[in-house]
């Protein structure tokens, strides 16, 4: 006899709920078995811990349509190669540090955690280590800079939101660096998208298209001041506004104003390089030369939070920003900087004749 559907009988719906749940659970179990195989260290998506001995990148895969980690030739970490046991021990230690300091309650890992600090999935590959923290911490390598930063984060702030000192020892910091390097080699299906890679300037081509990357045909036209200012204003807000503020007045004590004539007071370690470059005098920000201005935007000021933007921005954008800064935000120099000037500045600058460089000291 056919089973008739009795609308008012809960048993029908109960059977439906039970069978649905069981089917879904069975599927989940199968998928779990497959996924766990893929994500174990050495699986298809997650590298073995010894990947910390190799050069890691993040490259765009045309077929997949997103970025995937690239694992390259040998690249010693802290000047040495780690065995499987040693690497495993470092990763295990690193995870204990991450948990004991509750890093996930400020930062995210693969986008999971808290949203006060930046995502750390590809932190090992962040350009800021080379451009910002290596000079700031006075270290020679990226990993040493990270260790120094982690041990004394309060000494190297880059923004108004600061990382507190968490009592991280050198041994713990080393383990954390290894952890970050290993984690950056995990294939996370393209998250985070379009992450910038370390610019190995002059040696290798950039692995991924960068923001405003210079095309193979460099800009040769002469642009009007109006055009440059229009482009420069937008670029200024995007790249400079975080610290120098949209109104160009900076943050007292930390980030200098762009507007000439504004008073500025800060630690000597910041005022001295500014004065050397002609941008600070008698307690006020003054208008330095175009050449120094372009140099600062391209290369930053080593030993201070000002990063170089030469790797990120093309010649036209740098020219536009400098032109805007010198003709807007309360300044009226009438100076116009072209892309060709910026290109010449890149070519002409060497480490030894730059003011404030460590090789000169």
């Amino acid at each position: 006899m056919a089973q008739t559907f009795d609308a008012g009988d809960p048993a029908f719906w109960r059977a439906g709920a039970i069978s649905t749940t069981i089917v879904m659970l069975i599927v989940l179990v199968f998928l779990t078995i497959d996924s766990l195989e893929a994500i174990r260290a050495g699986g298809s998506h997650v590298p073995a811990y010894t990947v910390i001995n190799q050069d890691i990148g993040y490259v765009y895969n045309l077929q997949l349509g997103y970025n995937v980690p690239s694992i390259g030739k040998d690249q010693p970490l802290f000047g040495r190669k780690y065995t499987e046991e040693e690497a495993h021990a470092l990763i295990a230690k690193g995870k204990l540090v991450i948990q004991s300091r509750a890093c996930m309650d400020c930062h995210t890992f693969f986008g999971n955690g808290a949203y006060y600090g930046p995502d750390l999935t590809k932190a090992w590959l962040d350009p800021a280590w080379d451009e910002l923290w290596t000079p700031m911490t006075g270290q020679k390598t990226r990993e040493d800079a990270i260790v120094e930063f982690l041990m004394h984060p309060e000494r190297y702030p880059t923004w108004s939101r600061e990382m507190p000192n968490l009592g991280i020892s050198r041994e713990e910091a080393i383990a954390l660096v290894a952890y970050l390097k290993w984690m950056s080699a995990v294939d996370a299906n393209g998250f985070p998208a379009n992450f910038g890679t370390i610019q190995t300037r002059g040696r290798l081509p950039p692995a991924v298209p960068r923001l405003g990357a210079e095309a193979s045909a460099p800009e040769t036209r002469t642009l009007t001041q109006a055009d440059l200012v229009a482009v420069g204003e937008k670029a200024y807000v995007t790249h400079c506004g975080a610290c120098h503020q949209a109104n160009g007045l900076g943050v007292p004590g930390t980030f200098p104003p762009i507007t000439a004539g504004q008073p500025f007071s800060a630690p000597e370690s910041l005022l001295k390089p500014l004065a050397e470059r002609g941008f600070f005098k008698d307690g006020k920000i003054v208008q330095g030369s175009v050449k120094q201005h372009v140099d600062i935007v391209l290369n930053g000021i080593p030993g201070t939070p000002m990063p170089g933007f030469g790797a990120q921005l093309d010649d036209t954008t740098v020219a536009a920003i400098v032109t805007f800064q010198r003709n807007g935000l309360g300044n009226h120099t009438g100076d116009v900087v072209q892309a060709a000037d910026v290109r010449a500045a890149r070519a002409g600058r060497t480490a030894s004749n730059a003011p404030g460089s460590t090789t000169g000291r």
Partner: protein
Amino acid sequence: MYQSQRLALKYFTAAIVVFGVMVIGGLIAATDFVQPRFLYPELPFNIAKILHIDGLIVWLLTGFIGAVYWFLPGELGRETEGVRLAEIMFWILCAAVAVVFAVFVLVQYGGSDQFAMWFINQGRKYVEAPRWAAIGIVLVMLVFAYNVVFTAIRARRMTGILAVMMIDLVPLVVLYLDAFPVIENMSVDLYWWWWLVHMWVEATWEVLIGCIVALALMQLLNTPRRIVEIWLYIEVGLVLGTGILGLGHHYFWIGTPQYWLGIGGLFSAFEPLPLLGMVIHAVYDAGTQHMKTTNQPSLFWMMAEAFGNFLGGGMWGFMMTLPQINLYSHGTQWTVSHGHFAFWGAYACGVISVIYLALQKTRGAEVLESGAWKWSFALLNIGLIGMVGSLLVSGMAQAFYERAIGGSTLQAFITAQSSPWFTQGMVARLAFGVIFAVGYVWLVYDLLTIGRRRVPAPILEPA
């Protein structure tokens, strides 16, 4: 009144107290975004956040436990089995929570060793509590499960609602075992962590609140048991049918295979369906009573539960669940917007509704009414929706600038979060958070005072 119901009132009191701890943690954390040097470095952001999110879990769990202790004797016609033991566990739970939170604030962190894991801070979101406390929580839950199951055995009775609840308690307790291990491989750690978090708040907790709401609706609106049971089975079928593989929407970006983007995205997209069902169900039941009962606060909070669950979990979730969008929204304030709205709608409103239901009986009021409940209802909901809206603005700005345009580097992070859309959203969020906090204070006042004076019964129209 049964002993079990007296215990329920203790649990409800604890829940509301911890709700206050959550609010304080939230205010501090929200202020940090606007004024980063606030209480810095004595109380850094991560500690305030731990108080906030762990306070959330604890107050909701104690609310659920209280609700079950409240309804159980009525369902089975006898006192809860082992209620004296349950009372002892309650006081142990309170002491443990107090110690854990005090250690979070005063000690904050230990070294990278097992001592820290056992006694200070385990540092995994929602389950930061050290292992000794996690063991305590497991014991409390086991006693709770024993109470429920053995009361039914002694009563030689079972109802559909209770059967669903008891079966649901098994995964609820077992999943908590993920609170213990230190797993060095972050991908594997997150894989199992999401079994705990997702299968709690998007599966077992949904089933549990479904059972609790079913019990509440029978009392509040005299909805017939059979109808409530049918709806419960339909909802459970839909929640688990979509939510079990909807777990995959947490497996897009943690290193797991690519097929999770399709599977997780698809099932997650269906997750609003059961929530829509709950809304229609609530509208029907409340509509037959013309939105008038002898317990208006409980009714209004129940409606807030239905709508909040649908909008916060269903609509807000749907906006960000497709992988192409989630790639950019993942791990931003957009997530926070969704989280606040969903937790509030799905669970907080339901717990508050049940507390008002219990108070009606406790205070012996024929009609439970006050002026204050309307104020706290308005302020809390306006505050919450304001926070959610502000966070959506900040979150969309962050997804736009930091992830989509900027590529998630440190520079992108700084630039995006300095942008006016982001910063102004954070200021607005803090302002609405203050409104929410005021609403909370009013709620406490109302819960302490409502029903203590006689209110004349209104003339109820026939359905």
